[in-house]
């Protein structure tokens, strides 16, 4: 159990460092998913099975897919096919595959060990069962659950409002002042970092 925790932690740290050093957003996302899965395995070995499952389902499953979808949406057009071809070739998939293979070996080992010892998965000493978490969540933390529901409702309304289709008129009104229109007309384009001194961070 100790060794499994340390291996999962090492995989998490390595993949996170690789995430923030990649130049391509899709490569970084691959490593980020591996990092989240490694953190989930670490949670499981720490004795938090509910949180480990939620990490896989919500973080690696929902949030990362959302980001991948947006990255794909921003990549539309002629460049997309070319960049897809670039993504498929090369040795990009080797790093994440090796790290995930380590994780799957670990998970298989943990499941096999639980089977052999005859105890159900996610039980044993030092394990906080989902039942305890649920009792705490709907007992002393009930107000937090209500606040989280308000926050999610606010996020839903905000995302719907920001993502609504723009009318042509509003777009034309905005476009007169935007960087894009200024670049097209050859006017004073606000370039990235134009006003910043070179030694600023």
């Amino acid at each position, binding site marked *: 159990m100790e060794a499994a925790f340390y291996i999962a932690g090492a995989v998490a740290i390595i993949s996170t460092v690789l*995430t*923030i050093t990649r130049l391509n*957003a899709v490569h*970084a*996302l691959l490593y*980020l998913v591996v*990092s*989240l899965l490694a*953190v989930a395995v*670490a*949670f499981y070995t*720490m*004795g*938090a099975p*509910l*949180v480990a499952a*939620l*990490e896989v389902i*919500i*973080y690696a499953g*929902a*949030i990362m897919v*959302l*980001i991948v979808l*947006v*990255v794909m*949406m*921003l990549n539309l057009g002629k460049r997309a096919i070319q960049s897809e071809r670039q993504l498929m070739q090369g040795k990009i998939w080797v790093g994440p595959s090796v790290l995930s293979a380590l994780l799957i070996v670990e998970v298989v080992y943990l499941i096999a060990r639980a089977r052999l010892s005859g105890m159900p998965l996610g039980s044993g000493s*030092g394990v*906080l069962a989902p039942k305890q*978490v649920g*009792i*705490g*969540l709907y007992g002393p*933390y009930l107000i*937090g659950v209500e606040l*989280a529901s308000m*926050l*999610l409702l*606010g*996020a*839903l309304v*905000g*995302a719907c409002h*920001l*993502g609504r289709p*723009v009318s042509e008129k509003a777009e034309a009104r*905005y*476009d007169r*002042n*935007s*960087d*894009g229109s200024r670049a097209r007309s050859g006017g004073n384009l*606000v370039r*990235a*970092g*134009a*006003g*910043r001194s070179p030694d600023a*961070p």
Partner: protein
Amino acid sequence: MRRDLIFILMSVEIMLNGAGVAFVAAGSRWGQPDGQIMFLFILAMAASEVAVGLALVLRLYHQHHNLDADAFSDMRG
């Protein structure tokens, strides 16, 4: 320094995840479920943050055709 909005969002996710790891580790160290409960709240917060953030990214890309954070300097008041 990197100023791509997508990378900024991903880094925020990493930081929130790190905070969650700290909470869960502390909870398992003292055998209390409170750490896991806090992680659930962090999870809800991260999900709503990424939803609003990505909607903003889409809108900004639609208007500026650029995702550099410095390209939005003309938004300052």
